Structure formats: C-alpha cells, structure tokens
C-alpha cells in the first residue's frame, strides 16, 4: 500500500498545477471581458499584397 504515498503526491502536484494556472489566468485579465474574445477569434487574417503590411498585421494579431 506504500504506493499510495506516490499516488497522493502525484495527484496533488497535478491538482496544484491547475490551481496555479487558474490563478494566473485570472490575474492575467482573462476573465475581465468574457464576450469580446469570442468575437475576435472569428476574424480572419487577410492576405495582403504588400508584404510589409502583412508582417505588421501578423505582429498585431500575435500581440492580442
């Protein structure tokens, strides 16, 4: 039954990891606006003729 100690340690570590992720998500402001991100993900990146504009667009999209 000693394996129990290992199992408990493993599961608690995993669970704690999730709690930390949860805390981080909240502090990161992910719960401030629950609606707009759902709209934002549906926007397409557009094909740009000018390469420089394309790079700027990609950069802006990654920032969000």
């Amino acid at each position, binding site marked *: 039954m000693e394996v129990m100690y290992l199992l408990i340690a493993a599961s608690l570590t995993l669970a704690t990891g999730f709690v930390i992720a949860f*805390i981080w998500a909240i502090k990161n402001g992910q719960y401030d*606006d629950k609606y707009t991100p759902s709209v*934002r993900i549906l926007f397409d990146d557009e094909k740009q003729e000018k390469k420089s504009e394309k790079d700027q667009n990609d950069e802006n999209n990654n920032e969000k």
Partner: protein
Amino acid sequence: MKNNLYQTPAKIPVADELLSEASTNLNGVSKKEPAACHHCGDPCLAEDIEEDDYHFCCAGCQTVYHLLSDSGLHTYYKLEDTPGISMKGSDRKKRYEHLDDPSVMYKILDFYDGKNAKVTMRTPQIHCNSCVWLLENLHRLNDAVKKSEVFFGKREVEIFYDPNKLKLSELAGLLSRIGYEPDLSLGRLDQKEEKKSLNPLYLKIGIAGFAFGNIMLFSLPEYLAGSEGVDRQFIHLFGLLNIALALPVFLYSSIDFYRSAWLSVQQKQWNMDIAISLGIAAMFFRSLYEIFSGYGVGYMDSFAMLVFLLLVGRLFQHKTYETLSFDRDYKAYFPLSVIRSKNGEEESVPVTNLEVDDEVVIRSGELIPADATLLDDEAHIDYSFVSGESDPVKASKGGLIYAGGRLYGASTRFKVEKPVSQSYLTRLWNNAAFQKTEKEGVRYASQKVSRYFSPAVIGIAILAAVYWLPANPANAINAFTAVLIIACPCALALSAPFTLGWTTSILGKNKCYIKNGEVAERMAQADTVVFDKTGTLTWTEKAEVDFEGSSISERDLQVIRSVVHNSTHPLSRKLYAHLSVSGEGKLLPVSNYEEFPGKGIEAEVDGKIIRVGSGKWVGIPEQQEPQKAPETSQVFVSVDGQILGQYNIRSAYRPGLKELFSDLGKRAKYYLISGDNDREKDRLSDWFGTASEMRFNQTPEDKLKFIDALSNDGAHVVMVGDGLNDAGALKSSDVGISIAEDTGNFTPASDVILEADSLPQLEKFMSFSRKSLNIIYISFAISVLYNIIGLSYAVTATLSPLICAIIMPVSSISVILFTTLGTNLSAQKLGLRAWK
C-alpha cells in the same frame, strides 16, 4: 441600438408582396420601393447616391464607405450586412478642439508619457462584429494608432496611440467620421467609476472549490471504511493533508465573511455572517483538534463545501448589465464643450471653463449647459427634459434661460449668467435626496431572519453545553461546537442569493433590468405607484393624428411628408411618423426649406409653395380659427395659399395601460404626477378614476416633495418616470423605475430600467417579486427543518463528520433546487418569459 444620431420613426412592417404590387397606386403616382443603403441599411428616401452598384442614403454614408475602401477595410461589410451607423444629419462638423486643452486632456487619458498615450473612449454605437473588427483595425486608418481593443460589454474601445503624431481631438474626429462618435459628456471629466472587479471572488471560489474536491477525496475513506476503519497511518496522513488544503480556504476564501461579521459586531447588530463565521471557526478548530488527537479526519470537507457554496451564491447574485448605467448624475447629460465667442472668434471650450458674461453660441438641438440670458431677439426652448413640459417655450431677448433646456431653431447666442455648477439644475441635483445612497428603514428578508438566527444558534449551543456540563464535561464541548457546526446557515444564506439571482435574470429577460437583488425585495413591498406622464405613459414619437378638411390626394400626402421630414419639431416628427405608416416610399425633392419657430415651415415642391404650421401661418384669420379640445395640437397645411385642411394631433398613450391600472388598483394606490399642464386631464380621468390623484404643472422639486410626503406617511413608493425632471423623485422613492425606449440612450439614476414595451407588465413584475420573496421565506422554512434534524444530533453530542457531510450538501442542494424551480415556475405561471 443603431441610429442614435438621427431619429427615424418606427417602421411598421408591411408584407413584401403588398409592396411590390403597389408600385403604382390608384392615382398613378409611382411609389417605388427605395433601395437600402449599403452602409447603414436605412432606406434611401431623400437621396439615393449610386456607386459601384451600391446605393447610399446620404453623402455621409458614402464618405465612410470610401474611407474604408481606400484603406482596404472591405471586411467591415463582409462580416455583417449593413453594419454602418447612419451618417444622416451629421454634416454638422463636430468640434473637438477642447480635448487638446491640458486641463481636459489629462483627465480623459488613461496614460500619457510623452511618447505613448492610452485613452478609453466610450462608443455606444458598437452593436455588431463588424464594429469590433473595424475599431480593432483602427491602426490601418491612421498609423499613429498602435493598437486598439474593444470591450463589447461596456461599449468601450481602448486606444494606444502616439500623441506626437496624432492629437486627441484628431483621434476623436476620426472615430466620429467613421460613425463611432465618442460619448464625451461632462461626466467623463470626473474620474471614471472603477467597476468592482469580480476577480477576487473568482479566485476565492476557485481555491475553495479545489480544496473542497480534494478534501472530500481524502475524507471518503473514513466514511466508506466499514467497521475495521482505515489504516492508522493513512488516517493521520489524510488528516494532515486536509488541514493543509483547508488552510487557504480558512485564511483567504472566507475573509469576506469575517469582515462583514466584524463590521456588524462593531455596529452592535446581528447579521448572518456572524453565524457563518462562528460556524466556520467551530468547524476548523474542532477538526484541528480531532485530527491531532488522532480521532478522525475532521469536518474539513463540510467546511470547504460550505465556503464554496456560499461564495457561489454570492457570485450568482452579482449579475450585471454592463451596457446599462443605473447611476448617472447631471454631468452625464451635459455636453463636454460649447462654442464660445470671444472678440469675434469662435472656439470650442470645455463647459466647466465657462465664466459669467461669456458669450456662447448654441446650435439647434443642443442642450444649454448653464443658466444664461438670451442675446438674440427670440428663441424657442424645449424644456421637456427639465420640466416635462412638451411644448417649446418662447423666450425673448434678455430673458433668462435655465440650463438643461434644448434649443429649437436656428443657432442662437446667449450670455452666461451662472457657471455650470451653480445653475438651477445642478442645485437640484445637490438636493439632499441625491445624497441618500442606502434607503434607511428597509428590512430585507434575509436581514430579518439573520437578526434572530445568530443569537438563536448561540443560545442553543450554550444551553446544550450547560446541559452536558454536570454529567459529562467532554460532551459539553462536543455539543457546543457541534451545534455551531451543524446549525447550517448554509441553506439560509443560499436562499436569498439564489432566488434573487434568478429573479434578476428572469426580469431581465422580460426587459425589466434591475440594479441588484435587493431592488426586487423593495418592489415586492411596494404599495404605491406614482407615474409621470410625458414620455412615460405617452409615446415620445407616435401620436394620434387625424385629418380634417377637404379631400386630400395621395400626391398631396407625399408632398407634406417630404416637407415635414426636414423638420425636427416634435409635431413634425409625429406627423411624419403618421404619414409613413403605410411604408417608407421615396421622398419628393424639396427646395427652399425654411423653418420659422413659433409659426411653421415653408418649402417648395414641384414649383408649389407648401406651408405647414399654425392657423395664422397658413392664412386663417384669428377669429376664424376652429375651436379645439385642449389636449389637441392643430397643424394646418396649405399649398400655394390654398388651405387643404388641418391635422389634429393628440399624444398617444402606450397600449395596455387600462389593464395595467385596473390590475394595479387591486393591490396598490397609484398617482399621476406631471410637469406638463392639465390639458389631458379629461382623457386621463377614465383611467385614474376616483381611486387616485392627478397633479399637473409639477416642478422637479414638487415631485420630490410629493414622494417624500408619501414616504413619511409610511407608504412604500414606486416611481415611474423618464426624464431629468423625474430624477429627484426617482432617487427618493423606494424603487425608481425609468422608462427607456432605447436602452442605448441615457436613463436617469434609477433602480430599474424598464423598456417601454414592457410597461404594461409592470403589475406582473411586482407580483413576481412578491412571489420571489415568498419563495425565500419557504426556503428558509425548509432549511429550518434541516437544522432541526441536524441539531437533534448535535445536542445529543452524537454528531459525526459523516452525518455532517450528508446533511450539509443535501440541505444546500435542495434549497438551490427549490429556489430555481420555484422562481422559474412562478414566472411561467405569470406569463413571463423564463427561458430565452
């Protein structure tokens, strides 16, 4: 939500087949169906500009289309059909120079360091995905904008930009040009309300939930172990783990309960949170004792579950309607800037910078921001906002005009007499009524119960301890802590939040938006309802119109409609709405349009001179003017001097009022209080009958005093109103309900925002609130039942963690289920919409 800039009358849907059939009617006048504007979707009535196979209703819409296409922003039109905001009537350039004034600019900006600036602009026109897309691609319209992010719920956009390349005034101008005119009212200069973030609550719930789940897992073995029990080594380990998991819950998640209990103790009052805090403490410390003495795994699972459920209850009650503002003061109504004329030069200055003796130029439709005297010969001022009087008042040169009046007619010059903060209107707002935040003397259901609950629990605990002390001292402590643990305020503390959360939600689905759950309780206790008249009981735009005179042709009707379309006078708008009932056909071109306030309008259509206005204006000598009923306004029409007849216009009352008053009368007293004169008295006496009172010509202070008098007599008053003139009364009543025809516009400070269409259901809403209150009481009774069962174990010192772990969840869940089913079933029985 669209079209706040230019009000188009309500459209009556007409079957498509009818429209296509009726392309020419009996008189042979072609009534071609107008094309829809590609940008804003409105029918192209007055103008129809064609380009690239698209139609535009005005040059403004076409300009925005160009602006966006030139920057490659076609996606705006692809994401949604006709996503644009109508640009009709915005040919008047908005001036934003005052934003660059440092005293104003730094208050509006969120952040500024010389190289970067961040501003949050409120753009209430945001209504669809295209809006979000466009505003987040602002950088493609002007590369001084680095990044922009939309917060749809709050109708705001955060813009990061380079202040050296772009001035704040230019940024506001850009937004305005694409149709998203920023809402910059005087209220922006005061620091914005920091909306309380729910993040701390989320954190507390997350931690409590995590702890609860894991503690439960470690406690289960003991419950399921059977007679031989769990291995010694594990019991101890599980116990210690439980303590470790419960610690953050005890020290962090429960903080709000301790704070509230402590505040209550300082005020020498009993409060539910006192019982909760005692229960929490008892559970935690007794568990510590039992774990360290090797007795078991303690009550930590019930403890964590209790905290978790209580916090979830609080979260449930926190429903917010982010787009609606329930708290406005006068500053939200006033514009940020006004045009001041100094030494012959005109500049746009912030309203707060106005000084006495400044000369200001107010344009048609604008609000006069400070008490001022008229410099021009005459002016017509619409005071409906302030006093509820619906006819414009004529002022002569030198007369004093009060702040809050709206100018009707051509641009006029005024001389400021008092600074904005000392105007009559703002003094009204500073009245004591507005300082009252919490209505004293109201007893909420949960408060009533908690007053008795906490002392009762402590009393029983002491009694039990005293009983056991002589015989078995160990049992005394056992019984004492057991009572504190099991006397579950859990179910009690959950009843109100869950019920009120559902009540708020269901009322919201029926277009009755309440500020918070407590408002529902106050609505339930109300026994008196006071109604304002203009705009509340009457439509603001629609009216009852009939025509008296010689026969009038279809063509003439079209002519009148086209002429009247250009006027913003309340009677013109009502006439236009009436004439547009059978669909919005194309308008005829109108030339030489001119408006003469106090007299009428004149224009030329097809070479003929059309006049619409007073009897004198169309050429009827005064003695020959027909008699009219006091509540009717008469608008005469003449073509080339030949009088066609008159339109009799009466204000139209919203539908369903008769039933509303008769239903209300069964349970409550109701009154009418109006700022308008008493010309409608006869019409209204049918409804208001003898069981009520009607008062007219009431100033805002009169309204406030009336409500106060009623309250002092012990009545619980609900006030229903819509304008600035009602604001004082709304605030001082127990429940202030403001009627909104369009929730995108402002509403005065109130507890409830009711959409105009839902007004006839007011009695049902009050009835529903009453039922909700009853549900709260019944669920209190249910939880008392559980308490009795639990206490029977506690006082006999036979309480065990297992029993606790069963009773607590069962009682909590049954209360939650009961309140949920109860509120939803009541709603359905009343005919309210419960599910979307």
